């Protein structure tokens, strides 16, 4: 970390947050504001026969599908779920209508009294059901939102020539974002124009969706982000739905309408990480080289398509892990089930598949009687090799250095692959390793389609303002992008202005997702700042706008999934140390060592924050964050039931970063935020497996399953 840019500054929003002065959507009040409460489906799949509404006192309203002026479908990738149920419901919690009115308690009381009469339809509840064709499909003919396949090399031949074949089947569960601030928006209509204030990641997603929902010209839809209390992907696509509902209500009532989910509601109805089932077959030649992988990935998309298409793609492009595998065939499907829709969550399809491929590599190691570290290093991809999709790994890959650094930090190599004694006789200790990457920015040609625009404005007082649509959700964008501009222009950090985005003021620089903000948008701002520096004396006030194009080297075929799925990759290596209580089955993750290559870090403290938070979120994913559905209903609907790591559960996390500057990233930066979550689960699973000497193929790893395995 020798770079100047990496030296930390105090983040710009630290003090107002510490003082309790930052205003979140729940803290906003508008004159004459109405509260809203959603009435939701209580069954997983049904026709709605009748809705009985109690007598409404003056000033109270019901808002439903008949009030939507435009299209009653949320525009995401396709026209997706209805803002208000359109005669049928497809999951428990699907919104049917809103009750709005001036007094919250009264609104809630009316909402409780709404009676919905259903005619139930046999639901599809599991991945197996979804593919069995037993019940009427929810989506299309085959009940798959998408069904993709790609192949590199000749997998059939490779298997015919294999000396050994290793197979594995791996499953991952739901994960709930559990941002501490629940979802919320407020809508204000002035007779012509709608303004949405809210907790969100993607103001322009909302703007586009609402123009269609409300049948308004885009210029009459304004979206303003307010301080956002965590998101992790959970506020990527979901806020468009509630923003549309609140907006329709505001237009109907001609009053500001605030819609905030309570915690249980948020857990039950907001998107989750896709549960998955991944099957691998590996062909290994006589020299112990993995020559082919045959992969089948299934993601449970829930009742509506949402972002399943692209989440699955990212998973599929991670199927070879960080390894150079000459032949690979990947079949991926996202299936429809009558459950809450799943969607974007930090890692975006990659954590599921990295869990599987890393577990598979441990299995291959034990089959071959080889140390899992050596097996990995022997297969690790390096510069110039082909990726799973046949793209070229153009930048240096520093996996050997990362593993060496991990070894220095944790001394793990001598301890891996063994069951070691814990502090007490019934405690077993184990260590596990994971290697992983994250493809930076949007998958495939996404960045060219978005063609992000970023603006820099010089003000007459010499201050420079960043005008981009990217949001601060805790990750530190407000600070990181300011640093990039200040450092490039050689002006004071405090002389750079960057406010939370308001679509009336900022161009569409794309959503704040895919760990793209620093690398892609920061890169544009760096270019704009370089130009501004040269033209500084040209005028007192002027603007520079930059538009993104992929670097020329990128080749990608979106039809065949061939070429460079990402412009570059960030890498990670984790070692986990766990204790397993052989009596209770309880797992204590004691320590995680993590090394990351994110190019150059834009700010040491911010980066460390991402790493610590990501590793712990990944730890929860592997262990205590259990969420299961039964008959279409989530069994965990409160924080009491769905537990996330507290001070008492968190492992010690030690992080280190390896410099590996990326030519096209600002100051050499690559992607960072999502990467940090990916490696914890496979490392922990490997450690548990080593501790107890039984195979672990499923996360979250539940104590009762450990006990069963030990019996």
């Amino acid at each position, binding site marked *: 970390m020798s770079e100047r840019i990496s030296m930390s500054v105090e983040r710009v929003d*630290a003090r107002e*947050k510490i003082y309790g002065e930052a205003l979140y959507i729940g803290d906003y009040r508008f004159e004459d504001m109405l509260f809203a409460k959603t009435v939701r489906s209580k069954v997983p799949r049904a026709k709605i026969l009748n809705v009985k509404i109690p007598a409404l006192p003056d000033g109270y309203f019901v808002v439903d599908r008949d009030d939507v002026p435009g299209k009653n479908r949320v525009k995401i990738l396709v026209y997706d779920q209805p803002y208000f149920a359109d005669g049928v419901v497809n999951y428990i919690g699907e919104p049917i209508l809103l009750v709005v009115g001036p007094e919250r308690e009264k609104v809630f009381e009316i909402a409780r009294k709404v009676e919905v009469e259903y005619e139930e339809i046999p639901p599809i509840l599991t991945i197996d059901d979804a593919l069995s064709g037993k019940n009427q499909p929810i989506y299309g003919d085959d009940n798959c939102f998408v069904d993709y396949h790609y192949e590199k090399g000749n997998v059939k031949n490779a298997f015919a020539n294999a000396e050994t074949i290793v197979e594995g089947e791996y499953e991952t569960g739901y994960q709930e974002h559990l941002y501490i601030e629940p979802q919320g928006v407020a809508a204000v209509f002035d007779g012509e124009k709608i303004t949405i204030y809210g907790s969100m990641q993607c103001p322009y997603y909302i703007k586009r969706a609402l123009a269609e929902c409300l049948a308004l010209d885009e210029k009459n839809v304004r979206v303003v982000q307010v301080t*956002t*209390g*965590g998101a992790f992907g959970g506020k990527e696509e979901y806020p468009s739905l509630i923003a549309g509902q609140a907006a329709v209500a505001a237009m109907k009532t001609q009053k500001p309408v605030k819609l905030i989910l309570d915690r249980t509601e948020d857990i039950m109805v907001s998107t989750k990480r896709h549960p998955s089932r991944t099957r691998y077959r590996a062909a290994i030649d006589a020299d112990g080289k993995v020559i082919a992988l045959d992969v089948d990935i299934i993601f449970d998309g829930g009742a509506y398509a949402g972002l399943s298409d692209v989440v699955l793609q990212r998973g599929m492009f991670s199927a070879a892990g960080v390894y150079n595998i000459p032949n690979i065939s990947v079949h991926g499907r996202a299936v429809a089930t009558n459950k809450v829709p799943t969607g974007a969550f930090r890692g975006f399809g990659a954590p599921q598949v990295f869990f599987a491929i890393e577990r598979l590599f441990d299995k291959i190691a034990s089959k071959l009687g080889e140390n899992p570290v050596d097996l990995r290093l022997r297969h690790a991809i390096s510069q110039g090799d082909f990726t799973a999709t046949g793209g070229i790994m153009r930048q240096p890959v520093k996996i050997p250095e990362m593993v060496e650094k991990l070894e220095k930090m944790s001394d793990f190599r001598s301890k891996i692959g063994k069951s070691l004694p814990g502090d007490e006789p019934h405690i077993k200790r184990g260590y596990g390793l994971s290697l992983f990457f994250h493809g930076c920015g949007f998958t495939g040609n996404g960045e060219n389609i978005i063609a992000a625009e970023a603006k820099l404005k010089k003000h007459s007082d010499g201050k420079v303002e960043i005008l981009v649509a990217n949001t601060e959700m*805790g*990750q530190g964008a407000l600070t990181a992008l300011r640093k990039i501009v200040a450092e490039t222009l050689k002006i004071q950090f405090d002389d750079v202005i960057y406010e939370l985005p308001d679509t009336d003021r900022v161009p569409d620089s794309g959503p704040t997702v895919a760990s793209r903000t620093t690398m892609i948008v920061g890169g544009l701002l760096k270019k704009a700042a370089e130009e501004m520096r040269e033209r500084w004396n040209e005028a007192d006030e002027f603007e520079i706008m930059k538009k993104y194009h992929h670097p020329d080297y990128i080749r990608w075929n979106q039809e065949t999934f061939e070429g460079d799925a990402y412009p570059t990759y960030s890498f990670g290596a984790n070692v986990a140390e766990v204790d397993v209580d052989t009596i209770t089955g309880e797992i204590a993750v004691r320590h995680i060592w993590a090394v990351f290559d994110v190019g150059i870090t834009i700010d040491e403290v911010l980066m460390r*924050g991402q790493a610590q938070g990501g590793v712990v979120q990944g730890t929860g994913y592997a262990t205590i964050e259990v969420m299961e559905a039964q008959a279409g209903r989530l069994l965990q609907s409160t924080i009491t039931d769905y537990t996330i790591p507290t001070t008492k559960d*968190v492992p010690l*996390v030690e992080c280190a970063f390896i410099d590996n500057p990326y030519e096209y990233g600002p100051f050499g930066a690559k992607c960072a935020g999502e990467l940090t979550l990916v490696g914890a689960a496979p490392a922990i699973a490997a450690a548990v497996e080593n501790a107890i000497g039984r195979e672990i193929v499923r996360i979250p790893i539940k104590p009762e399953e450990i006990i069963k395995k030990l019996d």
Partner: protein
Amino acid sequence: MHSEITFTLDGERVSVDCNPLRRLLDVLREDFNLVGVKEGCGEGECGACAVIVDGKLVNSCIVPVGAVNGAEILTIEGIKKTEIFGKIADAFAQMGAVQCGFCTPGMIVATYAILNQNPKPSRKEIVEGLSGNLCRCTGMNIIIEAVEMAAKNIAR
């Protein structure tokens, strides 16, 4: 079913005339505009709504306002005026213990409760003292370190 409830709020005597079953959280936010007290769960599990009642850390979302009649309540607003607050704030800012910030006021209140009771807490005591406060962004280790740093700087 209204009644008059009187308590000391951040050093000032105040009273409200309302349903005693209203949540203390709502009274603080709505009647006193103390929006630094956050609602993260409403079920007593996240600590975002933490305040100090008669020296004890409590989650204001599960306390009916009637229960604080005569009590002394300290919120983030009152803590801001205490002597040790500056050191706590500096430590949180420097360590990067603040990300989205939604948990932060509650964390500061919990930190104040720890340090006010014991200026030299062990790591274990810090872990215990913060165990009712959830943070989904930082992974908690950084917050523990921030409390350690605050304690060290206050001792100086």
